[in-house]
């Protein structure tokens, strides 16, 4: 290293194996004080494991960790915190039913005569939030705030006065552009105060906005590290994928020809009070319809109304020209409409069940409980999906909860594909998915589309929508405010429609 100063934290020769899988092999990571260091890699590349080793959540098999030049022992998460290493995990692990104050003081309540002093706890909570310039009512339950605010509260909780290293694992996964900018402002402040920040994300734009240096992991090895300026986007992506980018770029150019013919699924004035204003929307075979809008604009609600997971109180749904009177997820699946939810942990995964069982579930409900799929058939289906979506798992019998985030997302996607749908509704299909998986998913969407599937893709990533959609419906404040097709689909156009100008 040209750098003469001692790194804030160094991981040297770190290795880790889980039964059946080598997660990390001889990995090095160096972070300087006052830098934002992006840690990138595909799903299962070892990012989470490396972070967990750094924060004491998982013991390492080999290697050394040095903090400010001195070797340190990190055996437990408490050790890590005592050394000033704090983490905000990908899935916010706060308690939504408790107040913000309680969440912020959970681990160390200020006491008075042996009892908790809530007055001082409130003051402490406010003081912690103040560091992030966040002013909210600390007596309201955390769950009543948006995910973005919850994310900031999680950061406030992780920060101590003596924090030297802060790990942010996908902090922006569920934030919109304004919220992300707010978060970055805070990250820059923290950086200026000398904290070394590890930033894990799948949004490459954000890496170039905020990171000073980048390290890339692939299959448990460090494959590249350096200043952001020396790693242009194409080089970075090929490092992450370990292959040239022709295949990834190709889909951007390949807008399918506009589909024509009768819509497979059409909503006519479909809506529900306080949820989504009545809207018209039609999906045709061989067509991808994008659903754009800010967080909270009604993307998920629209998707769920179409799938029957939210019961409408106005309008009707027409499938293959016939109205569907009482829609439900089960009926939708039976008539060939599948749905892939946004929040995989809460609404998608059955963590205890195996990959195989997770994949076959929707097909089984479609067949009904009496016509059980044979075991061989189940295995064949699972293998087929694991191969088609490149799901990284040692075998189909592994509990799905033990897979990495992106692979879990793929399993949920595999479930809806396995039900052999005519219409597929994807709510944020690439949330928390890396570039490689992203390309896999987009290629799959394209292939399915050319095979005659009708797709609805709700996404907060405009570039993604522009890349895959034949038509885009734009939502604002739980209302459909516009629709565009073909060459009109541009980032600027969508933003203008969202803004209402």
């Amino acid at each position: 290293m040209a750098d003469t100063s001692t790194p804030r934290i160094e991981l040297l020769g770190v290795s880790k194996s889980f039964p059946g899988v080598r997660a990390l092999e001889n990995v090095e990571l160096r972070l300087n004080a006052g830098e934002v260091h992006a840690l990138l890699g595909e799903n299962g590349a070892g990012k989470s494991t490396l972070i967990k080793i750094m924060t004491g959540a998982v013991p390492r098999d080999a290697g050394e960790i040095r903090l400010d030049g001195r070797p340190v022992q990190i055996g437990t998460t408490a050790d890590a915190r005592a050394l000033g290493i704090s983490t905000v995990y990908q899935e916010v692990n706060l308690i939504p039913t408790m107040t913000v104050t309680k969440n912020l003081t959970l681990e160390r309540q200020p006491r008075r005569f042996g009892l908790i002093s809530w007055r001082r706890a409130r003051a402490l909570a406010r003081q912690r939030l103040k560091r992030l310039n966040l002013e909210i009512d600390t007596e309201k339950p955390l769950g009543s705030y948006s995910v973005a605010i919850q994310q900031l509260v999680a950061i406030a909780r992780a920060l101590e006065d003596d924090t030297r290293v802060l790990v942010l694992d996908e902090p922006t996964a569920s934030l919109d552009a304004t919220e992300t900018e707010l978060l970055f402002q805070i990250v820059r402040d923290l950086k200026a105060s000398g904290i070394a920040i590890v930033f894990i994300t799948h949004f490459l734009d954000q890496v170039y906005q905020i990171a000073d240096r980048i390290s890339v992991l692939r299959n448990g090895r460090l494959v590249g590290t350096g200043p952001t300026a020396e790693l242009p986007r194409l080089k970075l992506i090929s490092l992450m994928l370990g292959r040239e980018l022709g295949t990834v770029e190709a889909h951007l150019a390949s807008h399918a020809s506009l589909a024509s013919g009768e819509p497979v699924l059409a909503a006519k004035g479909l809506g529900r009070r306080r949820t989504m204003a009545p809207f018209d929307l039609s999906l045709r075979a061989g067509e991808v319809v994008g659903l754009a809008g800010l967080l909270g604009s009604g993307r998920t609600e629209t998707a769920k109304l179409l799938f029957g997971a939210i019961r409408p109180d106005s309008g009707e749904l027409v499938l293959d020209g016939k109205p569907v009177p009482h829609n439900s997820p089960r009926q939708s699946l039976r008539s060939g409409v599948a749905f892939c939810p946004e929040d995989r942990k809460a609404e998608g995964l059955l963590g205890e069940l195996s990959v195989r069982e997770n994949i076959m579930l929707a097909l089984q409900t479609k067949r009904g409980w009496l016509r059980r799929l044979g075991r061989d058939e189940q295995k064949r289906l699972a293998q087929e999906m694991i191969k088609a979506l490149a799901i990284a798992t040692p075998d189909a019998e592994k509990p799905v909860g033990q897979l990495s985030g992106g692979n879990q997302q793929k399993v949920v996607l595999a479930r809806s594909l396995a039900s052999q749908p005519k219409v597929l509704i994807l709510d944020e299909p690439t949330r928390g998915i890396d570039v490689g998986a992203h390309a896999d998913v987009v290629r799959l969407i394209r292939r399915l589309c050319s095979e005659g599937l009708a797709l609805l893709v709700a996404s907060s990533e405009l570039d993604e929508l522009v890349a895959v959609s034949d038509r885009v419906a734009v939502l604002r404040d739980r209302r459909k405010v516009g629709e565009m097709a073909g060459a009109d689909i541009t980032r600027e156009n969508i933003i203008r429609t969202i803004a209402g100008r």
Partner: protein
Amino acid sequence: MTAPLPPSFSGRLRELTSHRATWPLLALAVILVVDGFVAPGFFTIRIVEGRLFGSLIDILYRAVPTALVALGMAVVIGTKGIDLSVGSIIAVVGATIAWRIQEGDPHFVILLTALGVGLLCGLWNGFLVAVLDIQPIIATLILMVSGRGIGLMINLIYGGTNPSFTSPLLQGLSVGSIGLVPTRLIVFAAVFVALWLLIRRTALGLFVEAVGGNAAAADLAGVRSRLIKYSAYLISGLCAGWAGVILTADTHTSDPVSVALYIELDAILAVVIGGGSLAGGRIYLGMTVLGALVIQTLTTSILMSGLPPEYNLLVKAVVVLFVLLLQSNNARNAVLALVRRRKR
């Protein structure tokens, strides 16, 4: 993905120690071996008066009611629920049997009525849990508390005593035998096979596990989770109904206050010893029966060992705790770490 590591001896050992059947089987074996030393002739099986006779047979025989109830409980726990009312269901079923015999119904009809009462109780529990969305522990507590009272009120219909009765059909099902084998074992085997087919040879088991694992996700995957929960309580009610027939015919009287007291706790324990988690999402029918056997073997052993019966519950609690500790990965690892430190 990296290639899987080759299996080694320690890997196989780990596989064995983490297999869910290992520890309960080991516990059962240990209890049996201790019995063998304490009671000579423990393992002898003789034929007396044309039927099998011996401690082992006795254990199987006595385990049947608990095992039946535990099977239903396993399904309910699979949905992330619990059924505390099983003991009370048995009391109501018993009272109904005694009453209808008093009224002179044909005994075959009485058998169907008894099972129908079990089903009806399941219908009630299912209504509270699946339709009204009441938490299972509260919902079934209602019948748990009221059931024994309902039993007493049924007894009042014909005078409020605990009259004894005879019924060749019901007693034949309970204490009789077909050839050498006690009938209740054969009936139990039939119930087990039927339930296993229902759970594992249809998709019901998968749906139950899906609902127990994540009800919201199951709903979005098209599972009708209310219906699935409902069916679990029906199965539990029916299983408890069968146990009620066996226990009532065994004592040939209706005793709502004390029949099958605490059987819900034994049933829950059997499920847990069998590796089921109260967090739901998994059903292990065979393992549940093994759990019920562990509990019954223990009860019988304590009685045979000559310890005063007052010790029964405490000893049982200690052994159950030990079995659960064996199953807990955390506890095992802690002990292993302690042993390794000693060695160093």
